[in-house]
């Protein structure tokens, strides 16, 4: 969700810049950021579901399985 906030801030910056110089490129980049955020959210939430079904919890400290 924090990632969403950061992507949203980047999109806002692009749109503001595009409106400052009267170009449509800012909104084009915003559309790309939107598509990327959608794909990233889909994969991330699938990962979260998978972790939950495998470990029955969502605590990152509890499910650390790496030796090290």
């Amino acid at each position: 969700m924090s990632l969403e906030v950061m992507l949203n801030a980047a999109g806002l910056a692009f749109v503001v810049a595009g409106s400052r110089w009267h170009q449509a490129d800012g909104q084009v980049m915003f559309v790309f950021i939107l598509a990327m955020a959608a794909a990233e959210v889909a994969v991330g939430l699938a990962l979260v579901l998978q972790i939950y079904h495998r470990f029955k919890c969502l605590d990152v400290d509890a499910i650390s399985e790496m030796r090290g």
Partner: protein
Amino acid sequence: MNPRPSTCIRYFREANMELTFYISGAVAVIATILMLTRLNLVHALLYMIVSLLAVAVDFFVLGAAFAAALEAIVYAGAIMVLFLFVVMMLNIGRQAAQTERQWLAPGIWAGPVILSSILIVEVVYLTRGSSAGLGTGATGPKEVGIALFGPYIVGVELASMLLLAGLVGAYHLGLRKTEKPEIQHDTDTHEGRADTGGDLVLAGADRSARTT
């Protein structure tokens, strides 16, 4: 003599535009800060939706109506509903009803309701005035579409491939979940047959998943 009132009105409208821009920006910042400091995920999602809507109003004031519509529909509509869906899905359990009742306590609605009512007042004010005075660099959806499918056609193709990859990846990651009960069932039969002590040929004995 005649242009003076019109310029005065225009100046007044521009000042009001700036004011609405700053107000919705402040709403976005406040909602984001409140979202980041919430400990409960559903409350954080509420503030996140308010923040996204505030940013959408910002886009609308800036003249990027297409981006505003996309922000409201895709971000606040689709992605946040996806988040909410997963949060509700992970919460199927014993005390789920109790925790949901705790989430929906009437006190926590105050913050998002206040912030989004500010946004609603702004939107009503903006749409009541003439839409011709929207911002200075208003770029409509037509220009965005022309730019999108003109010089940025490679980007569109790349975005479509990224979305396809995301779709396939999410499907693959979600597929294991339905495979899990089968593995469980398999090990159960394995345990049951091992108890008999016979040298039966076990079904699917060469599966690597059985060892886990």
